[in-house]
């Protein structure tokens, strides 16, 4: 059925063309490099250095101590002092600051009351603990306001109470795998999925179309070459390309962003291989449909955007509505983002990921079959 000689002829021809196509060749290396630097440095969800203002009605040694404690967290940078709430609100509206710490005139009394309560004394009739100061927050960016809201748990006291007197949190937290909570550690393995989606689909989607546009196809289909051989021959060289890109991202990611590299190598290779083939067959499918390279490019973007937005690369999968989750499940990138993070960040073995891997296998097989069936050795 399948002639290895013919397959070999097509694969080596593809390699020769690839090696001589400088732009494509540059894309293989430059694309991962540029994206890695861009995403690695720019995307950061650990919010720090939020610009903040202060309204201090208390003007005491204690209030200045409170400000110092808040500044020490590095979550906020105090850059402005305001003498009224109205002025502070205006500064937030004008986006001069994102948040303002308001310290009331009776701050010291409030703080003392709180300290007494915490030490077990009763103050007056009330058992309620009163807040001692206030954060005014620009809530339009949830990520930002969330970070500032975290400051409300700041342990403060005037009386230097022993730590045991401060309220214990109800839950103990233990961060696995990324204890420093650096976003780049989470972003970079996911980036492999995005880069591979982009390049793999782009290369194969234009592969057949280009042969058709340049007239090679008219000759090729009068030869005994079989659609399966042609399709496989188009895919195989790019598997190697995909692995090269993966290696570039992982090793640069390790070098520049300290992404841990303590994964199981066979698992990494298997997971990536399956994703590369799934993406390549998706590209082939596009190329059996597209009439020219421009159309192929447009259809690639059509797949790429959901891959970036829905795969869990940018936004947590769990936070998406149910319908979007179902939609995401039919994208190979979703399964890969999930499994590459598992392998690279959590040291998972590929056998732990059988559902995602099965999905990727199904994509590849079904996609390849449809593409081969759709490809006719005809011009009409």
């Amino acid at each position, binding site marked *: 059925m399948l002639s290895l000689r*013919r397959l070999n002829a097509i694969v080596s021809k593809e390699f020769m063309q690839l090696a001589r196509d400088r732009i494509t060749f540059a894309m293989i290396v430059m694309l991962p490099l540029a994206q890695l630097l861009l995403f690695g440095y720019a995307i950061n969800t650990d919010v720090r250095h939020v610009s903040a203002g202060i309204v201090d009605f208390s003007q005491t040694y204690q209030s200045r101590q409170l400000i110092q404690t808040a500044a020490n967290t590095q979550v906020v940078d105090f850059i402005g002092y305001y003498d009224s709430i109205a002025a502070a609100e205006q500064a937030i509206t004008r986006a001069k600051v994102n948040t303002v710490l308001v310290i009331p005139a009776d701050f010291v009394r409030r703080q003392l009351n709180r300290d007494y309560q915490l030490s077990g004394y009763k103050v007056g009739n009330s058992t309620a603990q009163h807040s001692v100061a206030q954060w005014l927050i620009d809530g339009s960016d949830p990520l930002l306001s969330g970070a500032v809201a975290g400051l409300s748990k700041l342990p403060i006291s005037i009386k230097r109470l022993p730590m045991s007197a401060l309220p214990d949190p109800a839950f103990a937290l233990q961060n696995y795998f990324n204890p420093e909570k650096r976003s780049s550690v989470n972003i970079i393995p996911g980036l492999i999925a995005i880069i591979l989606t982009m390049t793999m689909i782009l290369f194969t989607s234009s592969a057949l179309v280009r042969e058709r546009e340049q007239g*090679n196809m008219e*000759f090729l289909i*009068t030869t005994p070459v079989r659609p399966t051989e042609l399709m496989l021959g188009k895919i195989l060289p790019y598997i190697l390309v995909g692995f090269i890109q993966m290696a570039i991202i992982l090793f640069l990611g390790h070098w520049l962003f300290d992404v841990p590299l303590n994964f199981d190598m066979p698992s990494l290779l298997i997971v990536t291989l399956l994703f590369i083939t799934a993406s390549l067959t998706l590209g082939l499918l596009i190329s059996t449909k597209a009439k020219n390279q421009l159309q192929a490019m447009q259809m690639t973007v059509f797949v790429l955007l959901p891959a970036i937005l829905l795969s869990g690369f940018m936004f947590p999968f769990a936070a998406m509505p149910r319908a979007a989750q179902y939609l995401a499940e039919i994208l190979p990138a979703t399964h890969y983002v999930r499994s590459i993070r598992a392998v690279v960040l959590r040291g998972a073995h590929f056998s732990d990921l059988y559902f995602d891997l099965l999905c990727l296998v199904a994509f590849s097989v079904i996609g390849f079959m449809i593409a081969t069936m759709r490809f006719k050795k*005809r011009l009409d």
Partner: protein
Amino acid sequence: MTKEIVIQSEGLGKQFNDYWAVSDLDLTVKQGEIYGFLGPNGCGKSTTIRMLTGLLTPTTGHISIMGKDVQAHGESLRNRLGYMTQKFSLYESLSVLENLEFVAKIYGLSRNDVKRRVAELLQEYQLEDKKSVQSGALSGGQKQRLALAAAVIHKPELLFLDEPTSAVDPENRRAFWEQLFSLSAQGTTILVSTHYMDEAERCHRLAILEQGVKRADDSPIALMEQLRVSVCEVVGDDVAALKTRLASLPSVISVSQIGARLRVLINKKESQPLALLRAESGGGYEVDFTRTNLEDVFVTSTGRGYAELA
């Protein structure tokens, strides 16, 4: 010796949207023949060749090649057919050698055969010194030789050539035809489309196509003999003025100026063509019959000439 029929088509037609590119075409091509398709651009030559090679599905009719139905057994014929496309269809970024090796492997030649056959073709088609050149950098004539070499790499019994010489200078065209004759002498059947008269004249048999309809089909000599016009020549001063006068005569099919002469085609029904011309042109002109050529056949088989003779 009766030669085997290689191509046979009956009632072949192809409809694109609302127009027929080819209609009701009957063809018979015998083994070893060089069979020519002559016709203007857009007359259905390429469409016919694409149907014969199985690239397009005919709307009507049926084709059998070497006794096999093309629609049903197209793939099994692939190893016995060669096809040289109108546009250069090999890979421009690959060298001459790489292209030939690629095509040889696609046709399933063994490793040793690939080497031997490619070396043979490089020599036969004078590409030896160009073998490491990327084919995109070749001249028109070299590209065409490479394309022909690739089309015959598997020694096909039947070769289709779609306007093979459209980007080639006259000297290369002659050399190219030498190669076709040598292939034909070895028994290869060749179907070639062209819009050059001199090329059409070299074919063993010729079909003239216009708007997808076959207007004539015979050997070039027979076609010239069967001509339904008398071919006359008028020589004298100021033939340009005479040209319009002659063209308006009802029995004159066509007048064309060649230098200081007019070539006039007159319906054979006119029994005294020379007398007619002399009467119309008046004194001072030399009028006589002249040798017919293929262009006369073409003019009377297509367009206005065909309509007026019908």
